[in-house]
């Protein structure tokens, strides 16, 4: 079901074919895809939780917080797939004294101070430009976009065996002066930038 939705979503994202291919490829690569893909009823919900969990496993440089109680901002750039899940997940939560808040951005220029940024562009082909623009900024970039981790992003969600896994580009994280917990790294597939 989830796969169908992803496929549908990918189609909506106008660049559905490469995404579909990638998904199919990844699945066939592992070779364990059952004929009826039984994705978790709500991948968005899981991802929302994951976004929140990242805040616990990643350390930002102190200067990203202008004040001791300054909020930790989770941003969504582009289309928000989480509906109300993200808001529900972080409701009332805080990390190390930093309350969590959500900012939704339509365009890159809106981003001022942000710690975790989920990128789901309306125009996926602009991803490279966006990543290039964000390069050097201390923002943990997360996305479902294929090749995201290899192409300048830091964490990329991948669905393996009906489970959401992560692909992490440690170099990009280090470039953004972010420290990702080894515990998280252990769960993830570590990739490096192509090119």
């Amino acid at each position: 079901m989830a796969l169908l939705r992803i496929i549908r979503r990918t189609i909506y994202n106008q660049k559905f074919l490469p995404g579909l291919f990638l998904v199919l490829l990844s699945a066939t690569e592992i070779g364990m895809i059952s004929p009826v893909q039984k994705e978790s009823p709500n991948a968005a919900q899981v991802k929302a939780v994951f976004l929140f969990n990242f805040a616990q496993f990643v350390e930002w440089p102190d200067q990203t917080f202008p004040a001791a109680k300054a909020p930790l901002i989770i941003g969504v750039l582009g289309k928000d797939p989480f509906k109300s899940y993200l808001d529900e997940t972080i409701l009332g939560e805080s990390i190390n004294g930093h309350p969590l808040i959500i900012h939704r951005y339509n365009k890159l220029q809106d981003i001022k101070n942000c710690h975790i940024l989920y990128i789901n562009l309306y125009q996926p082909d602009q991803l490279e430009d966006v990543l290039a623009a964000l390069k050097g900024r201390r923002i943990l970039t997360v996305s479902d976009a294929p090749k995201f981790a290899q192409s300048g992003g830091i964490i990329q969600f991948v669905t393996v065996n009906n489970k959401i896994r992560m692909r992490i580009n440690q170099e990009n994280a280090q470039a953004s002066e972010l420290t990702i917990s080894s515990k998280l790294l252990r769960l993830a597939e570590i990739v490096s930038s192509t090119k």
Partner: protein
Amino acid sequence: MLNKDTPIRKKLMSAILLTCGAVSLLTYLAFFAYEYFTFRQSLVNQLSSLAEIIAANSTASLAFKDQESAQEILDALKARPNVVAAGLYDNDGQLFSKYPLNLSDNSYPKPEKQGYYFKEAHLVVFQPVVQNGKHHGTLYLKSDMKAMNERLTLYGLIVIIVISVTFFLAYNLSKRLQKRISDPILALAETARAISDRGDYSVRAVKMGGDEVGLLTDAFNQMVVQIEKQNTDITLFNQQLEQNREELQNIMDHSVDVICTIDEVGTFVKVSDASKLVWGYKPEELVGTNAANLLYEDDKEISIRAEQDVKNGIKITNFENRFIRKDGKIIPLTWSAKWDKKEKVMYCVARDATALKEAEYQLQKRAKELTASNEELEQFAYIASHDLQEPLRMVTSFLTQLEKKYKDQLDDKARLYIHFAVDGAIRMRKIILDLLEYSRVGRNNHDIELVDMNELVSEVVLFSRTTILEKEAKVIWQNLPQVYAARTPLQQVLQNLIGNSLKYQANGVKPVITIEGAETANSWQFSVTDNGIGIDPQFFGKIFTAFQRLHNNNEYSGTGIGLAICKKIIENHGGKIWVQSVPGKNTTFYFTISKSQRSHVNS
């Protein structure tokens, strides 16, 4: 196991072994308990630490729902064989991952808060999985206690071996050591038994050391010495007692007086052999019978009274009564008796008073005879002197007639003879009168009355005033006491003594006569002192005898009866008369009057 009769060896060994066993057992129990609790605690600590590490490692797995990595982490527990089960729960309490995999989900409990508990020989630990303050789930660990049990079993084995060895050592050591204590005691006990069995007090215990048992041995020996000594003393004392008893028996057997004991109701308890002699009964015939059976009827009343006195504690001597001998003869007895309050018997000595009574009777008879003869004699003297007067008067009167009527016919020689004859007759008359006087003394019973001696002396002085004036004599007296006496005879005594003092004086000497009197305890004593010619001490006794004279009639006239009369009067007053004198210087006559005269006062 140990009663009072257990031998001391066993008691000592048991005490040592029990103490030893108890101490080691307690020590090991304490050690065991300590080990058990520390081991449990260390198990808890180990498992808790392990749980903390695993929980820390599994935060990401839970946070990002990565069962594989979670499984990986839990699988690492394979290195810990004591961990028999483990599990991770998510925040909803659903089992997220388990170890070992083949374990049924049902065997997992519901997740709990952080903590541990022991259940069915297992230790269970729950550890929350927290990342950065966010709770992601709970870790469950279950460990068996095999290690601890193995360790405790090992300890138990060691303890059993050690206790066995200890016990073995203690047994052997105590077996040897207890001898040091028990041997001297046993030796002492053996000696004591030997002494008591054989009664041989010359045996002594051997001292084996200077400890308490040694002291006990010394004390024991000392005691035995004392017992031996006392034994000897008792034997000696018994011998002495036996000797005394024999002596007493001898005395009883050979006493001529009956010695007997009589009980409360008057029964003979013991009677000496003399009863055979005195009463005619053998002692064995009397013992058990009542003494009153022998009593002469008339004496019963006084005897009962005397017996009562004795029982009241009065010791009687010379109590007299009469018994009837076996042969029927009445014999007088003199009793001495004393009551023994403790034994409740009377100790009596009965003397046959027959001879005594006889002697008494004879004495009384003689006294009576003597009195009678005395009276006859006095009567005779009185009659003689009285009757002699008449013929004497006739002699005198006819001699006087002869001289008067034949004066002219008689020559001078005849006249001188007649004169001598008349003079002799006169003197004879005087003697007869004195004799009469003397015999009268004591014949007339004068009344005893209170006599003032001052008065009496002044009467005598008045009576002799002619002589006193003539001789220019001086009579001195003052404050003489009053006495109980017969007035007239006492006056006679004073008359005689003062008269003598006036009479026996050297020529030309003025008589000085002093009369003194004093009271003594039982009598009054008087003295009459003069400055006369005195009396040679060799005649002190003689002068009080009738008709004894120291001087011829020419020197000092008198018949020599005066002092004899004085003596008789004083003796009638229960007194004495005596003299002291320095010849040529003075003479003092003393006489006393008994105070007992007072009781003769006729009321």
